[in-house]
């Protein structure tokens, strides 16, 4: 479904990504792991068109989407739950969610359009008329996920969805993500907590200094000596 090959991205004059390649098949849950600054968020941003690709190719369902506009890629069925959530803090929860379907031109619909999101995160129905900025970190993350779902994506990119989320809500969000995946949505998850990530995804890629250095399923990654030393050394 998603095929990234030899991706390179520049931030100004600095090269942030050198050579990232990864593949995500339809219906898969795939992780993207790596240290801070390895280039995980840049990879996600490049896929959805927030950053220009200097080299390499990105295809989605066989269609090249590198350097396509974000609006276009979203319309094709890719959605991002971005690092730091990027909500509209002074707008209500309902307005935030409705904006998620803006690109699809369905944003004018009220009430019923949001029911699937409220079914997933019932607490948001109670907070619908509250400003998104007043919610707790975990609830804001629910809004970010719900907003991304409003464009009815086939591929959901999740960038660190558990930062600033209370432990009690982490499980609730993980359950919701599992249900979304069961509905047939493909997922690419960036996550700092390797154990948590490997519980959720079937396999993962590891990037280091802007390059893909390792790929494998849970057992293969945990069995890899270099991987264990780097990511599990402190455990």
């Amino acid at each position, binding site marked *: 479904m998603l095929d990234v090959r030899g991706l390179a991205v520049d931030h100004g004059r600095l090269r942030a990504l050198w050579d990232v390649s990864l593949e995500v098949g339809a219906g898969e849950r795939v992780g993207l792991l790596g240290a801070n600054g390895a280039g995980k968020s840049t990879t996600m941003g490049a896929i959805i068109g927030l950053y220009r690709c200097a080299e390499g190719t990105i295809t989605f369902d066989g269609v090249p989407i590198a350097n396509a*506009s974000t609006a276009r890629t979203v319309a094709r069925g890719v959605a991002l739950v971005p690092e730091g959530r990027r909500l509209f803090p002074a707008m209500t929860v309902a307005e935030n969610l409705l904006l998620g379907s803006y690109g699809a031109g369905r944003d004018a619909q009220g009430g019923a359009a949001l029911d699937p999101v409220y079914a997933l995160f019932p607490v948001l129905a109670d907070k619908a008329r509250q400003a998104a900025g007043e919610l707790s970190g975990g609830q804001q993350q629910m809004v970010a996920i719900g907003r991304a779902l409003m464009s009815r994506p086939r591929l959901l990119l999740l960038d660190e969805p558990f930062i600033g989320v209370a432990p009690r809500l982490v499980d609730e969000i993980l359950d919701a993500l599992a249900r979304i995946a069961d509905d047939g949505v493909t997922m690419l998850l960036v996550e700092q907590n390797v154990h948590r990530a490997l519980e959720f995804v079937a396999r993962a890629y590891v990037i280091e200094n802007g390059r893909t250095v390792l790929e494998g399923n849970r057992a293969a990654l945990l069995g890899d000596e270099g991987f264990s030393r780097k990511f599990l050394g402190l455990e």
Partner: protein
Amino acid sequence: MGFETVLQVLLGGILQGGLYALVAFGLSLIYGVVRILNFAHGTLLAVAGVLASAAFTALGWNPLLIAAVLCPVFFVLAMAFYQVLLRPLERRNAYESIVGTVLVTVGALLILSDLTASLAGPTQRNITLRLPSIEVGAIVVPMTQLVVLAGIVVLTAAMHVILTRTRFGRAVRAVTQDEVGAAICGIRGGRVKALTFGFGSATVALAAVLYVLSYPVDPYMGFALTVKAFTIIVVGGIGNLPGALAAGVFLGVAEGLTALYFRPEWAPALSVILMLTVLVARPKRLGFKA
């Protein structure tokens, strides 16, 4: 000085302040979305005001028709101005793009003022409607003032509805609050920026028609108005419609009272003093709200 005089000044201040607020709101919308301080913004009011008064005296058009013509014309011209002169600067580095946009908008201010003065003359002009006055006890309220007041109320309400109830309005607020968040919702930032630049400028054209009905305009009055609009944004909050209205009316009434009790020539300095006071004392007030 009697009670009636004070009431007259208050009413005048509310009118003047409402007009300031309309100008400021267009400017703050543009700043919130496009992140450009448009120094030519107030000059657009001067140009539109001169055009309106010329159309009124030379062609005999009624003010509603003038507004209906000026609004789309300013919308389209301002969008073209943004696309051709300002948008290319966004791709430059931060320093070049900031200096570039200041030069372009200040340049537009100077050229528009001179061009208007050379074509229409540098003198003050206005539109004088011969409407009756209403007397409430000892207070005489000219009908024109009520018409302008109604215009301000209608325009403010229309802007509120556009911002909260339309697809364009939601996109404007989204881009103002988080540009990346807006992009991943499928909002095309470039298009929204151009439309907002046009929209903000078109509201100034409408405000200009209301302005010339009550006060004289001249080609060189624009920059002072832009400074007042900056003050209102600083005091009332960026993208905050009720805040702009309150700050505008406060400024308008304060100017009126200063002219009444002190000296008229000190009234224009008020806005600068107010802006500096707020900036120095409460810098946190500059947050975004939309």
